[in-house]
């Protein structure tokens, strides 16, 4: 926050002139923000409401309340529609990929940020360049690399691709973070006779925890929401991740769609991420403000 309390005199001078105009502008601002908030919230509330209705009720009237509040749709989506399977796949893929990318990203950015050797700049820029490539260009060759390696349509294959494509962002962010860690601690550790491996795992990694946490949240959101990579590289329905499962629902032709289950599935997909967001909300916004995207 940069707000500074201004001179009392200025405050006094301004009070009379601006008070009434202030109220109009403030009211307009509130109306504008309130309308936008409604546009944001209402579709979600509607989805939650609909998830308790039968498909017949949904098609009959969008506004009506369900006749019986029941979790049938959730049970149906979770078991019959395979959301449980997709959910588990997603947790495995995102969980493993997240741990791996944070470890590899921290290792790589630590070496790049703290050691001087020929080629370090080049590797750093080659990594950063990856932020600008459209994934679409790589998708076809990637398909065949996985196929030749026997990794196509397997969870490990998907995990490796997730890790590789989350690396540039992770390195980009953690690099600047490791740069800012004080040298004194490192030197003290060297004097105490700690080797590079110990210094990294026992001293530097714990010190970098705030930065790692922030990047991890962004990577979690990005990986949980990933769509193109699994759709192209993971086409076995038994190994679908949640986003693919949701797309399956959408592509089912008109009449056969079980709308109740669809809405329930949407809620099941959104809630974990929403919980993560609400818990880490401050830190998430804080890390945006630290200049992640500048």
């Amino acid at each position: 926050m940069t707000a500074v309390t201004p001179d009392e005199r200025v405050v006094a001078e301004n009070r009379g002139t601006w008070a009434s105009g202030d109220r109009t502008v403030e009211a307009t601002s509130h109306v504008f923000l309130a309308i936008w908030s409604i546009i944001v919230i209402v579709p979600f509330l509607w989805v939650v409401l609909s998830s308790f209705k039968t498909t017949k009720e949904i098609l009959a009237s969008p506004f009506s309340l369900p006749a019986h509040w029941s979790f049938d749709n959730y049970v149906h989506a979770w078991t019959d529609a395979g959301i449980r399977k997709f959910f588990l796949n997603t947790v495995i893929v995102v969980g493993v990929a997240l741990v791996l990318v944070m470890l590899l990203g921290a290792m790589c950015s630590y070496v790049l940020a703290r050691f001087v050797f020929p080629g370090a700049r080049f590797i750093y820029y080659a990594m950063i360049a990856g932020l600008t490539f459209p994934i679409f260009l790589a998708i076809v060759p990637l398909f065949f690399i996985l196929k030749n390696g026997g990794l196509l349509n397997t969870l490990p294959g998907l995990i490796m691709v997730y890790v590789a494509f989350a690396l540039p962002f992770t390195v980009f962010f953690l690099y600047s973070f490791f740069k800012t860690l004080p040298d004194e601690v490192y030197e003290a550790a060297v004097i105490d006779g700690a080797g590079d491996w110990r210094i990294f795992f026992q001293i530097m990694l714990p010190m970098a925890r705030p930065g790692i946490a922030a990047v991890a949240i962004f990577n979690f959101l990005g990986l949980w929401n990933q769509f193109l990579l699994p759709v192209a590289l993971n086409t076995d329905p038994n190994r679908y991740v949640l986003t693919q499962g949701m797309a399956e629902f959408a592509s089912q032709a008109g009449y056969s769609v079980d709308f109740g289950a669809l809405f329930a599935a949407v809620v099941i997909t959104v809630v974990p991420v929403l919980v993560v967001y609400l818990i880490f909300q401050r830190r998430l916004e804080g890390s945006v403000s630290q200049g992640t995207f500048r």
Partner: protein
Amino acid sequence: MPSLDRLSFIAVFLGVPVAVYVIFVIYPFGRALYFSMTDWSGFTPTYNFVGLDNFTKLFHDDTFMRALRNNLELAIVVPFVTIVLALAIASIVTVGGPRRGPVRGIRGSSFYRVVSFFPYTVPAIVIGLIWAQVYDPSAGILNAFLTKIGLSGFQDFAWLGDPRTAMPASMFVIIWSFVGFYTVLFVAAIKGVPSEIYEAARMDGAGRFRTAVLITLPLIRDTVQTAYIYLGITVLDAFVYMQALNPNGGPNNTTRTMSQDLFNTAFRKGQFGYATAMGVVLAVVTLLFAAIVFAINHFTGGGERRLRR
């Protein structure tokens, strides 16, 4: 001479991540450039080098050219509207508050910020699905709402099925999902501006709108430039949204994007060489877009040089 401990440390710490990166990122991009100049179907062991034939063919491919035009429309409209909305919200919640006392946002600003950021946490495919339902002609909430407030003609209006509204409706969904994220980004940038500047503007009698346009915008223009480029990259792809809203390209291909065309050409029609050429065009258009945004910012007096002074 560095010790063995250090050499092994650097080798492992750098070697493993770089190997993963080269195999799964750098190498595919390199291959893509080569594939784009072949007639490979993906299923035959052999293929011919055809030079730039795929690209000449692309520029006579009506569907692809239509998709390219749609992407350009998206790249012009979506970033602009998103940024204007995000800037307006960001200004109100940071410096739009009462004009006496410290420079601050209006009451309840953190609530608005949290709410508007929310869509960013929802998977894009789910956002597409939700809005496909909202727009649904008979069961959707939008038509129900419009009919309820007394507007006629919306009982069965197909927002995504009418060539006139399919694109604007799709654009709105993308804008809706990104406004909150860029609001947070702009809030951070505005907080980096010394509040003395806003106090001075206020004492000179500048209103909120003039303050936003003449003070905030020039001071955070590099952040705006970044936002423009990120949004541009996003909508030049736009695959997920369009796939959820109109998987088949919309009425008369009005919402078909290059990415959808690429995906179908590769994985449905099995023309991998041709599809990769589309990917190259997509990449070139993306780079051009970024270059144009940089150039505009530079020639209107922005850029890092000025701000570093």
